[in-house]
């Protein structure tokens, strides 16, 4: 180890590092793997998805619902592996945006355009899911109350619930990441436990052979059906990448975050598969269950009707945690953009004592709360609007994943670390995502539901165009792709330790 000993005895001069990280001001290295896992799982909202999604997939894919979910899960694992290529090399607060920006670079027009498209897609996706989740939480709470005979909740009361939830999220997000992470962990754990309990109980009541062979009577919908089902299932997974926004605040992020992403993807896959198979095995079809209440007949068949309000409560908790997680992510992506000058620097400021993205949170949580509150208070057309919001969100997320998967081999090539399997995985994932995105929009357009796609194109396209125009005529363009660069202190040859040499 001679060269190593020499290097320690006479440290080389290393340039390029600064005393502070560009992402200073956040609660650096304060969270553990459990908190990061809670963030990713909460944003994916498995309990809420398991309650709402299986019936939709079965409708599209028929007997092949299980295959559709497996296909979606495989794609998600590929995407997770690709995202991991970035996450194990750089800790960032801007999630996929920072990664894409590092890959595509800040010079020219095409590079920044692709990077900004990823960033604005993420912002839109996180914002829309947060809105949807707040409304979902209020609605499932209303169902719990309705079960106990406390009448249908009037629109203004549901809006009130949303405002209260939003206010709690606001306070938690401002006060500190430790606090909000803990709240997230508790809420999401409760939601997942409820789901596991329900699944376990139902599993014991149904013959195992039925569960494995399950498929609805409506007959085989063919490969096209499985593809549509897979796309619907994919939208249940989105959010699993959001631990990447905690790249600054997690301890050992380069080790922890890739693992957390993989575990979130794998864990939620198993939950969804089990939930879908159980629903199918219980013989529930789209005709016998009203939308969103597909689990009622299953739980009744299994002899535990008392679990119906419990599962509703679990879904409400899951949605609440989801909205908090999405708001956490939204604020950090915005903070990153603020520090880069993509959006005004005001968004990039962190609170000196709470170490949170204070301004970004203040700018995003109130509007994200008000939209669903107003929709619920207005009463009419709530589900239509909510569908449009979630449709926009799914499009935005898939677009962000697609751009990230294209960015991965570009990034690896740029830093000289491109090898076969990561490249192949990224290309495969990108192709599958592109196909999924096209299929999704085509199917929706066929049903006359193109609003989501147009909203996405206008909002994201418009933002990207505006930013590019500003960069062209404005001040010197800042380098995109801000991440948590190691400080001089972490490098051998940085500032001398206070004790001097001779230990």
């Amino acid at each position, binding site marked *: 180890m001679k060269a190593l000993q020499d290097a*320690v005895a006479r440290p*080389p001069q290393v340039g*390029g590092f600064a005393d502070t990280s560009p992402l200073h001001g956040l609660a650096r290295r304060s969270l553990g793997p459990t908190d990061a896992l809670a963030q990713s799982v909460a944003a994916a909202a498995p309990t809420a998805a398991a309650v709402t999604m299986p019936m939709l997939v079965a409708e599209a894919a028929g007997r092949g619902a299980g295959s559709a979910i497996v296909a979606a899960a495989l794609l998600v694992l590929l995407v997770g592996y690709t995202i991991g290529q970035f996450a194990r*090399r750089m800790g960032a607060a801007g999630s996929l945006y920072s990664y894409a920006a590092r890959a595509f670079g800040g010079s020219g027009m095409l590079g920044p355009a692709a990077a900004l498209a990823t960033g604005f897609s993420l912002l839109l996706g996180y914002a829309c899911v947060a809105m949807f989740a707040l409304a979902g939480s209020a609605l499932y709470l209303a169902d719990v109350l309705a079960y106990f005979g406390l009448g249908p909740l009037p629109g203004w009361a549901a809006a009130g619930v949303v405002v209260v939830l939003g206010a709690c999220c606001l306070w938690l997000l401002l006060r500190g990441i430790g606090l909000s992470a803990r709240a997230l962990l508790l809420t999401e754990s409760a939601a997942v436990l409820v789901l596991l309990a329900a699944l376990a109980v139902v599993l014991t009541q149904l013959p195992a052979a039925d569960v494995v062979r399950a498929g609805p009577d409506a007959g085989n919908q063919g490969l096209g059906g499985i593809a549509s089902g897979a796309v619907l299932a994919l939208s249940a997974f989105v959010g699993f990448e959001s631990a990447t926004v905690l790249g600054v605040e997690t301890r050992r992020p*380069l080790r922890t975050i890739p693992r957390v992403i993989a575990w979130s993807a794998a864990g939620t896959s198993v939950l969804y598969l089990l939930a879908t198979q159980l629903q199918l095995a219980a013989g529930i079809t789209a005709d016998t269950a009203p939308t969103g209440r597909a689990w009622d007949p299953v739980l009744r068949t299994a002899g535990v009707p008392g679990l119906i309000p419990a599962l509703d409560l679990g879904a409400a908790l899951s949605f609440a945690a989801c909205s908090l997680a999405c708001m956490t992510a939204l604020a950090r992506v915005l903070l990153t953009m603020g520090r880069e000058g993509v959006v005004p620097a005001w968004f990039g400021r962190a609170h000196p004592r709470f170490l949170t993205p204070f301004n970004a949170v203040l700018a995003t949580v109130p509007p994200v709360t008000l939209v669903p509150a107003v929709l619920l208070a207005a009463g009419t057309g709530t589900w239509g609007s909510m569908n449009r919001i979630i449709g926009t969100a799914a499009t935005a997320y898939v677009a962000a994943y697609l751009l990230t998967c294209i960015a991965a081999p570009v990034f690896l090539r740029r830093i000289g670390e491109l090898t076969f399997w990561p490249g192949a995985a990224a290309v495969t994932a990108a192709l599958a995502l592109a196909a999924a995105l096209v299929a999704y929009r085509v199917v929706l357009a066929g049903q006359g539901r193109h609003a989501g796609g147009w909203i996405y194109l206008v909002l994201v396209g418009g933002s990207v165009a505006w930013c590019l125009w500003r960069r062209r005529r404005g001040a010197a363009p800042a380098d995109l792709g801000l991440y948590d660069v190691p400080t001089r202190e*972490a*490098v*051998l040859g940085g500032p001398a330790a206070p004790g001097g040499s001779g230990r």
Partner: protein
Amino acid sequence: MSQEQFDDVGLRARQPKAVQSALAVLEEVARCGPGVTGMEVSRNLGLPKATTYRLLNLLVEDEYLVRMPDLSGFALGRKVEMLVRLAADARPLQVRNRPDRQPSTRP
């Protein structure tokens, strides 16, 4: 060495050979100087690229190495001081236990 110091070292390799390779990678980065790329390390050591990149990433995860700000090169992390110090502390113990030597003062 105390258990805490062992845990702190962190190199969680599943095979003894991997630990040897990781140390060889560290030594190579020390020899080449800051900014050496993964490809150079792989070529100099004669290891496959994928293996080298994996080891480099492991060492960066545990902060024995840091990536240069442009992410395409590596430099030694401050933590190697601890590694070298642990190795240095271990040596006097071996010297004292050899039966044919007089117990000597620490160097």
